[in-house]
C-alpha cells in the first residue's frame, strides 16, 4: 500500500501540474480487459491483474492511466488539452517479486497538434521540474527514427510491415533483418515446402477456423518473399549504425544528421529530433549533457512511437525508473475510431522519490 508520505507527495505533484494549466482527471480502477488485451496482447496478462466479473466479463485493475485518459479524450475531449492525475496502478511482478505490485503514479499528458516537438520538450521539462533536485540521471531516445528507417527500406511492403510489427521486440527484429538480408538461410522446412509439387500432400483433413485458402495465401506470401532480393548491405549497416547511436544529444544529432545525408528517408525524423533539442534548450534543459540512445525504450510498453525518456536514481540500478514518458500518436489513432491527435505524456512514481530520500 502507498505510504501517507507518498500520497501527500502525489497530490502535491498533481497540484503542481494543475497550476501549470492541466485539468485534473480520474478514471476507474477496474477497466474493461478487452481494450488492453487488444492493445498489448497476451503479454499484458503477465503484467496486470485480470479478474472476472460474471456480468461485465473480464476486468483489469488499471496498469496505467494513459489508455483510459486517451479513451476519454478521444471520446469527448476538447483540443488542445492538458491533463493530470494521481492514483494507484497495479502491476503483477512475476519476474521481480520484490517490486511493488500496487503503487501511485502521477501523470501529465498533452494532446496538442500545434507543435509536437515543443510538446515533447514541454512534457520532459514539466516532469523534470516536478522531480526537483533529486539525484536522477535522464535517458532519452526516439523510436520515430528507427520507424522512419524501416518505413524507408527499399524492399517489399511485406518486409517493411513485418519489421514494423516487431520494432518493440529487438531479438525478433534482428532475426528478421538477418533473414531478409540473406545472412541466415531460409529454414529447410520452408525450402522444402516451396519446392514441393503439391504442398498439401499428406496434409490430413482441414480442421479449425484457419481455412485452406488462408494457408494457400501464406504460401503465396512466402513464395513472394523468397523471390524478393535481399536487403542491401548498406541499409542493414544503416540500421545497425542507427541502433548503436548512444551519445549526448549534440553528438547523437551530428551522427544522425550525417547518416541522414546518405539516407534521406531519415531526414524528417532527424529534423524533429533537432527541433526537439532546440525546444528543450529553450526550456532550460542542458541538452549538451543529456544522453540520447536511439534504441532506448524499444523493449518497454508498445505504445511509444516517437520521443521517449526515463529518469533513473543515481547509484540505484535495483530500482525501476522514477519517471518515464514518451510520445504515443499511434495509440490515439487506435483508440480514436478514425480520429487521431499527436499526444505525449509522462508519469512519476512518488513512492520511489520517497525511497531515494528526495526533498518533498
Amino acid at each position: 500500500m502507498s505510504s501517507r508520505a507518498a500520497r501527500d507527495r502525489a497530490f502535491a505533484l498533481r497540484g503542481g501540474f494543475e497550476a501549470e494549466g492541466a485539468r485534473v482527471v480520474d478514471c476507474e480502477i477496474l477497466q474493461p480487459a478487452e481494450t488492453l488485451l487488444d492493445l498489448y496482447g497476451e503479454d499484458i496478462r503477465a503484467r496486470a491483474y485480470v479478474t472476472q466479473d460474471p456480468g461485465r466479463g473480464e476486468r483489469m485493475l488499471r496498469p496505467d492511466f494513459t489508455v483510459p485518459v486517451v479513451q476519454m479524450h478521444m471520446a469527448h475531449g476538447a483540443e488542445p488539452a492538458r491533463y493530470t492525475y494521481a492514483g494507484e496502478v497495479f502491476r503483477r511482478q512475476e519476474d521481480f517479486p520484490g517490486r511493488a505490485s500496487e503503487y501511485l503514479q502521477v501523470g501529465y499528458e498533452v494532446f496538442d497538434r500545434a507543435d509536437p516537438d515543443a510538446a515533447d520538450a514541454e512534457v520532459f521539462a514539466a516532469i523534470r521540474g516536478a522531480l526537483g533536485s533529486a539525484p536522477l540521471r535522464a535517458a532519452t531516445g526516439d523510436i520515430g527514427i528507427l520507424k522512419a528507417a524501416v518505413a524507408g527500406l527499399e524492399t517489399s511492403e511485406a518486409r517493411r510491415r513485418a519489421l514494423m510489427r516487431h520494432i518493440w521486440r529487438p531479438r525478433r527484429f534482428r532475426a528478421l533483418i538477418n533473414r531478409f538480408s540473406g545472412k541466415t538461410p531460409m529454414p529447410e522446412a520452408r525450402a522444402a515446402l516451396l519446392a514441393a509439387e503439391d504442398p498439401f500432400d499428406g496434409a490430413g483433413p482441414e480442421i479449425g477456423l484457419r481455412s485452406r485458402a488462408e494457408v494457400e495465401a501464406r504460401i503465396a506470401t512466402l513464395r513472394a518473399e523468397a523471390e524478393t532480393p535481399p536487403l542491401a548491405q548498406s541499409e542493414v549497416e544503416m540500421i545497425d549504425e542507427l541502433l548503436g547511436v548512444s551519445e549526448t544529444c549534440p553528438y547523437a544529432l551530428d551522427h544522425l544528421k550525417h547518416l541522414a545525408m546518405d539516407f534521406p528517408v531519415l531526414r524528417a525524423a532527424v529534423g524533429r529530433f533537432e527541433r526537439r533539442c532546440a525546444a528543450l534548450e529553450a526550456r532550460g534543459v542542458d541538452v549538451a549533457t543529456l544522453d540520447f540512445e536511439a534504441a532506448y525504450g524499444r523493449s518497454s510498453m508498445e505504445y511509444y512511437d516517437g520521443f521517449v525518456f526515463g529518469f533513473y536514481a543515481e547509484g540505484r540500478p535495483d530500482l525501476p525508473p522514477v519517471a518515464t514518458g514518451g510520445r504515443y500518436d499511434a495509440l490515439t489513432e487506435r483508440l480514436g475510431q478514425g480520429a487521431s491527435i499527436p499526444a505525449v505524456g509522462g508519469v512519476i512514481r512518488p513512492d520511489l522519490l520517497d525511497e531515494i530520500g528526495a526533498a518533498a
Partner: protein
Amino acid sequence: MSVKLGVPSKGRLMEKTFDWFGQRGITLERTGSEREYAARVTGIEGVSLVLLAAGEIPRELAAGRIHLGVTGTDLVHEKLVQWDQKVEALAELGFGHADLILAVPQSWVDVTTLDDLDGAAAAFRAEHGFRMRIATKYHRLVRHYLRDGGVADYALVDSQGATEGTVKNLTAEAIADITSTGETLRANHLRVLSDEPILRSQATLFRSRTAEKSAETRETLRELLAKLDL
C-alpha cells in the same frame, strides 16, 4: 519433527516413485484400506510419507509444509514464480517423461516453426479480426516461451482437459499441452512444431528451500540423501 516426503497419491506416478525409493532401500507403502490415504516408510527412521495430488506438491514444497516432494518439472515451473529460489531439484527419477509442446493442425502445411506461427498469427488476425487462440492450461510457461520466440498476435484460452479437441471444436486454432507419445495429437490431426519443446518434463525429487530444519530433521535428511546416493 520428522522429515516429510510428499509423493503423488495415485496411479503410475505413485507406483514408480515407490519402486524408485524401494530400489534404494527405502520402502514406501500405503497402509489401511484401499481408499484411505495413509502410508508408511521403512528403511529409515524419522521420515513420514504424505500422499498428495501431484499438482499440489509444488505449492506444499514452496510453503515449506513438506521437506521433499516428487512431482513433474512442468508443474513446478508453471505453478511457482521463481521456482529455483523455492525448491531445488535433487534427482530426475527417469520416469513420467512428457514434453510440453505446441501443436497446430496437420493441414497447416505452411507452419513448422515458431517463426511460421508468428507469420500465420499476423495473417490470421488481419483475416478474422481477433488474435490466434492457443488452448492450454500452462499459461505462464507458454507465454514465456512465445515471448522468447517473438510471437505476437496470439491469445491464450484456458483448457483444463481434452485440449486436443479444441481446434476441431473451433474454440482454439492451436494448442499447447503435455504429451508423451503424441498419439492423441495424431488422432486429432495435430502436429508438433519442430522447435525445441516448451519444456521437457519428468518426475523429479525436489527439496524445499523454505521448510524448517531442526538439528534432527537436518540429520535425517542427510541420512536419507546418503541412502539415495544424492
